[in-house]
């Protein structure tokens, strides 16, 4: 169980590393492919002993960790540095798996369903805002990327928001309603 997941995580990180030149050449693939790939690799890592402890009740600490790490990588400045500064590039390959993917894995299942729903709605609205920012910015936000790539990235954020919305809402539609009445009758009267 652990070994295949570990190797898959390693493979993902390796892929993100090996193909970093083409991936980072375009901000769309850099931000919407490489970064999620690294976070996904982190989510596959096994949780250390004790992560189910009292300090992680409700998953708050872990989710907040991931939120702050994501906020850091949302700064255009961080993206520029990841391209130009090897030390920042290395920290990207470390922090996205360890400070975004892994904490989300450890926090999310413990989070209250309401918090999860709220974060999902928040993520959609936030992606919408990012889409606006990157399509409407009066200046280049990243020195490493062209203005028209910036606009494409904004459109990419919007597409991601729509895709996530469908991904998250579609399973909820499921009119398993036909099966539900039995449960309903039992609990209503």
């Amino acid at each position, binding site marked *: 169980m652990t070994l295949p997941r570990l190797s898959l995580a390693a493979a993902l990180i390796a892929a993100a590393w090996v193909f970093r030149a083409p991936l980072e050449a375009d901000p769309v693939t850099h931000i919407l492919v490489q970064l999620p790939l690294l976070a996904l690799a982190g989510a596959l890592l096994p949780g250390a002993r004790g992560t189910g402890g009292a300090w992680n009740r409700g998953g708050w600490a872990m989710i907040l960790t991931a939120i702050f790490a994501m906020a850091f990588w949302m700064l255009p400045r961080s993206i520029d540095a990841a391209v130009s500064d090897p030390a920042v590039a290395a920290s990207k390959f470390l922090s996205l798996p360890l400070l975004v993917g892994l904490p989300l894995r450890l926090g999310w299942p413990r989070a209250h*369903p*309401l918090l999860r*729903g*709220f974060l999902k*709605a928040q993520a*959609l*609205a936030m992606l*919408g*805002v990012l889409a*606006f*920012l990157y399509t*409407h*910015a*009066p*200046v280049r936000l990243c020195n490493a990327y062209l203005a028209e790539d910036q606009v494409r990235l904004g459109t990419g954020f919007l597409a991601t928001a729509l895709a996530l919305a469908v991904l998250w*809402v579609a*399973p*909820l*539609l*499921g*009119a*398993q*309603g*036909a*099966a*539900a*009445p039995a*449960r*309903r*009758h039992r*609990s*209503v*009267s």
Partner: protein
Amino acid sequence: MTTTTGAMLPEAAYGPQEGAVKLTMLLGGVVFLLMMIFGLIMRAAQGGMIAVDPALFYQIMTAHGAGMVGTAGLTGAAILWYFTGRHVPLLAGVYWAFLGLFLLGVVCILAAIFLGGYAGAWTFLYPLPALSGGLWGPGASVLFLLGYVSIGVGFLLLHLEVMRRLMARYGGIGGALAWPLAFGKGRPEDAPPPAVVAAMASSVFNTLGIVVGAAVLVASIVNLLVPGFAVDALLAKNMIFFFGHVFINASIYMAVIAVYEILPEYLGKPWKTTRIFAIAWTVVLVFVLAVYPHHLLQDVPMPGWALAMGQIVSYFSGIPLIAVTAFSLIVYLRAADMRWDMAAALLVLGVAGWSVGSVPAILDGMIVVNKVMHNTQWVPGHFHIYLLLGEVAMAFGFMAWLVRRPLAADARPGAARLSGLDHGVFMAYVAGGAGFVLMFLVSGALSVPRRWAVHVPDWFLQDRLATLFAAMVIGAALIIVLRYTAVLARRAE
């Protein structure tokens, strides 16, 4: 098996946070009154009866709009929460968070308007909040928008909790919307009660509205802080009106839950989820999301298909309302041996006002009519019908029901009618309300623009009559709210 309909449950199957809801309705009632007084001040100022500086007029107008829309949403949400709580257990903390965030938002909005001078109307139409002509600074606009954000977050939490519980209980969104009955082989007796269908549909579209609203609010805030981030004005307007339209509609569609849940007590028979009812609510869900371009019929750069869709959906939105909710109520009323009290009367008025108000709304939703009626007083005319005589009537009806006298066990058939003070108050509310909205409609037909601080003497007659009618409504509303407060206070002792 005949009594499984939720609407017939005499008392709550779960604890619907009655205290919190009663507090909300008290708050809502008081704010409604205050905002009505703002309305009266504006009509009196337009009629030349009092002098109000235009800057103050437009601040009052902004407060009146934001306050009325917010309070309609607040009371609608309280009704939604109360009756959803009959069918599924709800987390009390969520409601308190909702209420707290709402009040925080109210404080921000009031401070932005009356301390910061913000008077960009409740619609914060881009780029007006940023270009005030020197009347208010970007800080006031940002504070106003942050107030909206706070309220939006509260609503989001509330709807998420409602949807989550309903999905778990009734089998997903589709189950709670009675899709098996609407589009499949589901049997009516297996379908969720009407309140659940309405709660699910209104929660779904209000959540979508709020997510879009959050995006345009943040974009507007960014533009205020960093003016270089210019927004496409037409896109912003689309997003704002999608959000605003969905939000105000949701308040009515949530409030009507009170009709589905309370009136059966008076009618003596349950309000059933039928196939047509289930279909109607799914249609409503789609239409509420699709119809918003009818607010942009004069925005000629819009694609023609969107405007045509706005006009057509605007008309067809009336069908679920008229042919399902209103029609069913009329059929129920004809068959029923009603014992009337304030609650029943106001709830029926709510459906009637809503239905009647859809007529001038649909007419204004036609591009040819809109061309000469848009942004005249016809517009506040039609929406005051289905808000003042619709949503607010339902909210007041719900309040009256919360503090109702126990239904007499030996009520004689057909004997219990509204009497004495009740009758007077109700009639004053209806007559005052009808006269008030009629003045708007007449002024609209006479080309009186809406949102003008200063009117010419030709328009004074309607303005002054409207002021009179507004005073009547306020008197009636005052008694309704005072009686509600008095009973609450007495019971609390």
